[in-house]
C-alpha cells in the first residue's frame, strides 16, 4: 500500500509552499497564492467543489502557521512571522475538512431474526430502533451511537463499525460530536498523532512551527538542529547521514547535534535510577523517553506516575548539553514525533522548536535544496551503538540492560518492551494486578518505536534496517563506553525532572 497518499501529498505541498514563501520573504503578500497553486481549477478534485477545497486549505495553512482557525489568514501570517505560536494543542481537527464520516456506526446484519424479545428496541434510550421489513432498523436521525443495541442483541446481529480516527486512538480520546464531526478530548489525548495518520480526509493535523523557525534562521540566530536517531534513511535510502547534516547547514542551521548522544546520557542516568530504586522504592520502573507514553500514564494511570523514570528524555538531555555550551542557541528538535511538540513546551528554554522529518523535508524543498545532490562528507556518530538504537522499539530496553550488566552485574532486571499505547497499558495493568513480574518496561506509543512515528517519511522496515546498520558503525558499543556522554554526565547538569 503506498505511504504517500493524495492527503499526504496535499499536506506536504502546503508546507513546502509556506516554507518557500517564508524563505523568499513573500509569505505576507503571497500567502493567498497557495490557495491557487495547490488547488487549481483543473483539479485534481478531492472534495465537492473548488470552494470547499480552498476553505479546507485555509484551515490547513493556519495550522501550518500554528495559529487558531478563528483568525483571518493575513493575521495568522503576521503572528507566525513575528515568531508567535498560539496557545493551542498540538493535534487539531479541522472541522471543515472532517467528512463527519457518515458511516453507520451500528449496523443491523442479516443475522437479525426479528425475535419477539426485541432486546434492541427495549434497550435503546432514544427509541431509535423499529422493525422494518421483518428486521430491526436503526433510525440514524435519532441514534446517539451508545451501543446498547449491540450489547443487548443475543444473536450478535448488530455490529459496530468505527471511524478510522476512533479506531486508531488506543485511549478513546477522539469521538464523533453531536454533529458527527470528530472531537478530541484533550484530557485523554497524548498527542501521539495516530489519528492524524489514520484520517483518510486529512482532517486532523499537527500544528507546525516551520515559519517561526525560518524567521529565526533568517535573523541569523545560532540555530542548532538536534537530530533524532530515526533520521537515518528518512530522506531516501541513497541520502547519506552526512548529506542530511550538510543540507541543514546549507539551509542556515548553525550546527547539528545528535539526540543519540542524549540517549547515551539517558541510559547512564536511567541505569543508576533503576538499580537504586527497584525494588526498594518501587516495584517497577518504566522508561521516560516517549512523551506520549509518559503522558498516557499521567492521564490514564495517574496512580502509577511514580513508576515512570525521572530521567529526562534524550531530546531534553541533548537540549541541556547545547544550552550549557551556547546559552543563546536556538535548539530545534528534528524527529518523527508529534508528542515531542507538547513535551518541549513543558521544558521552556531548553527546546525552542520541534519539527518532524516531514516538515524538515518540506523546508528543504522550499529552500530549493535537494539532499540527493549535496556532496557527501565524513560523518561519525557521537553516540554509541546502543544510543543510536533508541530509534527502534526495544532499543532503550537493550541499552539499559547492557549498562546494568556492566555496572551492576547480577541485578534482578526483568524487562519488557511494549509498542502501541494499548499494549503499554495492558503491560502495566498486568503488573498492578500481579499477573506479571516484569520490573522494567520500555513504553513506545508507536509501532516499531520512533521509526514508526507519525512524522516519518520512509517505511519503518526500511529505516529500521538502516538505523541498525548505522548504529553498528559507532565506535562505542554501550553508553558506558561513550566518553562524550560520560563527560556530560559528570558536568553537573541536572538530568532529571524537577
Amino acid at each position, binding site marked *: 500500500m*503506498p505511504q504517500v497518499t493524495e492527503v499526504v501529498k496535499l499536506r*506536504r505541498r502546503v508546507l*513546502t509552499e509556506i516554507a518557500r514563501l517564508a524563505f523568499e520573504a513573500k509569505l505576507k503578500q503571497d500567502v493567498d497564492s497557495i490557495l491557487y497553486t495547490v488547488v487549481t481549477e483543473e483539479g485534481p478534485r478531492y472534495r465537492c467543489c473548488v470552494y470547499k477545497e480552498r476553505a479546507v486549505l485555509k484551515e490547513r495553512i493556519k495550522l501550518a502557521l500554528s495559529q487558531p482557525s478563528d483568525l483571518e489568514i493575513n493575521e495568522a501570517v503576521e503572528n507566525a512571522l513575528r515568531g508567535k505560536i498560539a496557545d493551542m494543542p498540538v493535534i487539531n481537527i479541522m472541522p471543515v475538512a472532517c467528512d463527519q464520516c457518515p458511516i453507520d456506526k451500528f449496523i443491523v446484519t442479516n443475522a437479525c431474526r426479528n425475535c419477539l424479545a426485541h432486546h434492541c428496541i427495549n434497550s435503546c434510550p432514544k427509541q431509535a430502533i423499529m422493525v422494518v421489513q421483518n428486521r430491526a432498523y436503526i433510525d440514524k436521525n435519532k441514534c446517539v451511537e451508545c451501543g446498547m443495541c449491540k450489547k443487548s442483541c443475543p444473536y450478535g446481529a448488530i455490529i459496530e463499525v468505527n471511524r478510522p480516527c476512533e479506531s486508531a486512538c488506543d485511549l478513546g480520546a477522539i469521538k464523533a460530536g453531536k454533529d458527527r464531526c470528530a472531537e478530541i478530548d484533550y484530557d485523554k489525548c497524548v498527542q501521539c498523532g495516530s489519528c492524524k495518520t489514520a484520517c483518510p480526509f486529512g482532517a486532523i493535523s499537527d500544528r507546525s512551527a516551520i515559519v517561526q523557525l525560518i524567521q529565526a534562521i533568517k535573523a541569523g540566530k545560532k540555530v542548532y538542529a538536534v537530530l533524532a536517531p530515526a533520521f537515518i534513511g528518512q530522506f531516501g535510502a541513497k541520502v547519506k547521514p552526512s548529506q542530511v547534516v550538510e543540507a541543514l547547514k546549507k539551509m542556515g542551521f548553525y550546527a547539528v547535534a545528535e539526540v543519540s548522544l542524549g540517549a547515551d546520557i539517558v541510559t547512564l542516568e536511567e541505569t543508576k535510577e533503576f538499580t537504586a530504586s527497584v525494588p526498594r522504592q518501587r516495584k517497577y520502573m518504566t522508561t521516560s523517553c516517549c512523551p506520549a507514553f509518559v503522558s498516557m500514564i499521567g492521564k490514564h494511570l495517574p496512580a502509577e506516575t511514580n513508576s515512570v523514570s525521572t530521567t529526562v528524555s534524550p531530546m531534553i538531555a541533548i537540549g541541556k548539553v547545547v544550552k550549557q555550551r551556547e546559552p543563546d542557541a536556538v535548539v530545534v528538535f528534528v524527529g518523527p514525533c508529534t508528542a515531542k511538540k507538547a513535551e518541549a513546551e513543558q521544558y521552556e528554554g531548553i527546546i525552542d522548536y520541534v519539527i518532524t522529518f516531514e516538515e524538515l523535508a518540506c523546508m528543504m524543498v522550499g529552500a530549493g535544496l535537494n539532499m*540527493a*545532490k549535496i556532496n557527501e562528507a565524513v560523518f561519525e556518530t557521537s553516540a554509541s551503538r546502543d544510543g543510536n538504537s533508541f530509534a527502534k522499539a526495544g532499543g532503550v530496553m537493550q541499552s539499559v540492560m547492557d549498562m546494568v550488566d556492566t555496572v551492576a552485574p547480577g541485578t534482578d532486571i526483568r524487562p519488557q518492551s511494549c509498542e502501541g499505547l494499548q499494549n503499554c497499558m495492558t503491560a502495566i495493568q498486568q503488573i498492578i494486578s500481579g499477573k506479571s513480574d516484569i520490573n522494567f518496561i520500555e513504553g513506545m506509543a508507536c509501532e516499531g518505536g520512533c521509526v514508526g512515528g507519525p512524522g516519518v*517519511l520512509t517505511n519503518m522496515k526500511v529505516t529500521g534496517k538502516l538505523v541498525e546498520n548505522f548504529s553498528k558503525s559507532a565506535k562505542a558499543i554501550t553508553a558506558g563506553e561513550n566518553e562524550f556522554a560520560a563527560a556530560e554526565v559528570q558536568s553537573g547538569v541536572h538530568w532529571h525532572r524537577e
Partner: protein
Amino acid sequence: MTMLKIEVCVGSACYLLGSQDLIEMIEGLPEDVKANIDLRGSSCLKACGKGPNVKINGELISGVTPDKLMEIIKYNIQRK
C-alpha cells in the same frame, strides 16, 4: 529483448511526493517482469514540484502514482 529503462527521481522534492512508493512497487513485481526492467535512481529529473517524476525509455512523465506506473509497465511489457 530490449529492457524497459525506468529512471525514478529520488531527489528531495520527488521523494516527498512519493517516489519511494514507486521504487517499492517495482521491486515488489514478479521476478519475470522485473527481469525486463532496468531500474535506476536519479537525483533530479529537472521537473521539481510536479513529482514524483519518472523517465521511461527517456521520456519524462510527471505526477506518477504506483497505479499509473503499473499501467505503463504492463503496456510496455505486453507490447514487446
